[in-house]
């Protein structure tokens, strides 16, 4: 499977160095290595979800307990989480860090991913969620740190979109 192990390691290390100790996730091809790393790391709690929106509640509870967490999901998981994002994370001002695999963008070969890809950025924009696209592994740690800093100072969700350039090796 040509998912980049090296860049998955970069991403996982970046999440850890940002102090994140809890990840909620639903398996997705691009995220399998990160999830396995989380599962194998005794300092990381991984909660595997049935549906991504649960992760909004879990991260909210973790935040109230003073713990740093992130949601790890595909952009279709973002779509299914919208009500939770709006009516829990935004309503209650939760610094929700969302790390999202950006399927359906340039270079996507799976037809079923393309509709979700087309509307991911417009959706984030209409929700007023500030986001960055991550393509260059050299600045992943920096971008994760910056995103978390903004989430915590603004007390709002912030998103990082993992692009094909970062996650996939042809």
């Amino acid at each position, binding site marked *: 499977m040509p998912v980049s192990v090296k860049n998955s390691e970069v991403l996982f290390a970046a999440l850890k160095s940002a102090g994140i100790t*809890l990840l909620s996730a639903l398996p997705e091809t691009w995220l399998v290595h990160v999830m396995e790393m989380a599962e194998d790391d005794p300092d990381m*709690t991984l*909660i*595997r*979800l*049935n*549906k991504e*929106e*649960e*992760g*909004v*509640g*879990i*991260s*909210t*509870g*973790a*935040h*109230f*307990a*003073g*713990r740093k*967490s992130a949601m790890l999901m595909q952009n279709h998981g973002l779509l299914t989480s919208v*009500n*939770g994002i709006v*009516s*829990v994370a935004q*309503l*209650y*001002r939760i610094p929700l860090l969302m790390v999202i695999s950006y399927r359906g963008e340039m270079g996507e070969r799976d037809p079923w991913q393309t509709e979700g890809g087309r509307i991911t950025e417009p959706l984030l924009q209409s929700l007023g969620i500030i986001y960055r696209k991550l393509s260059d592994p050299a600045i992943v740690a920096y971008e994760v740190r910056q995103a978390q800093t903004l989430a915590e100072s603004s007390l709002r969700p912030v998103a990082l979109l993992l692009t094909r350039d970062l996650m996939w090796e042809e």
Partner: protein
Amino acid sequence: MLREDALKAVYPRLKSQVTVTIMGAVAVELYNLGHQPNFFYLEHGMGLASSMGLGLAVSLPKEKVTVLDGDGSVLMNLGSLSTLARYRPPNLTHWIFDNESLLSVGGFPTATGTGTDLAGIAEKAGAEHVTLADTVEAAEQAFAEASERDGLSIIVSKVEAIGPLSFAMDINLLENRFEFARHIQGLAS
């Protein structure tokens, strides 16, 4: 049983637990019994109170966490019962008040009124300790056992579809949010 009477019976115990309620009648009835800084009323995000409880419970292993839920909310996020059963935080009690109704929006009947069995679903999801408690005495005992238990507890109580006369609460939702977070982080540190 009236939910209010069950809450009254367990209030002395609940007072010292990290507690999350759903919106509507449950929130108002608990608030009217006496607000505590460790009470959080989730006024929207239907279905996510149990997920919040999971996030709190795994992050606060030394605290008892209780979620006061309802049939409408649980039906909206049934997968959460399965996630709870999968991770079974030993310090979490998930108490579902089942009035077979979406009471706070006008009393429309839910699927528990036509046969959906939430306790059965919780059991089949893999939860080990599922208790039915439909009287005040049974509720008091089930909650006492849940509070002492080192294991995930799920309580399902059939209650009458009767709520408070007013849904007004003299607490802003952000006030509740920041007070709760500050209090909980004090417990954690």
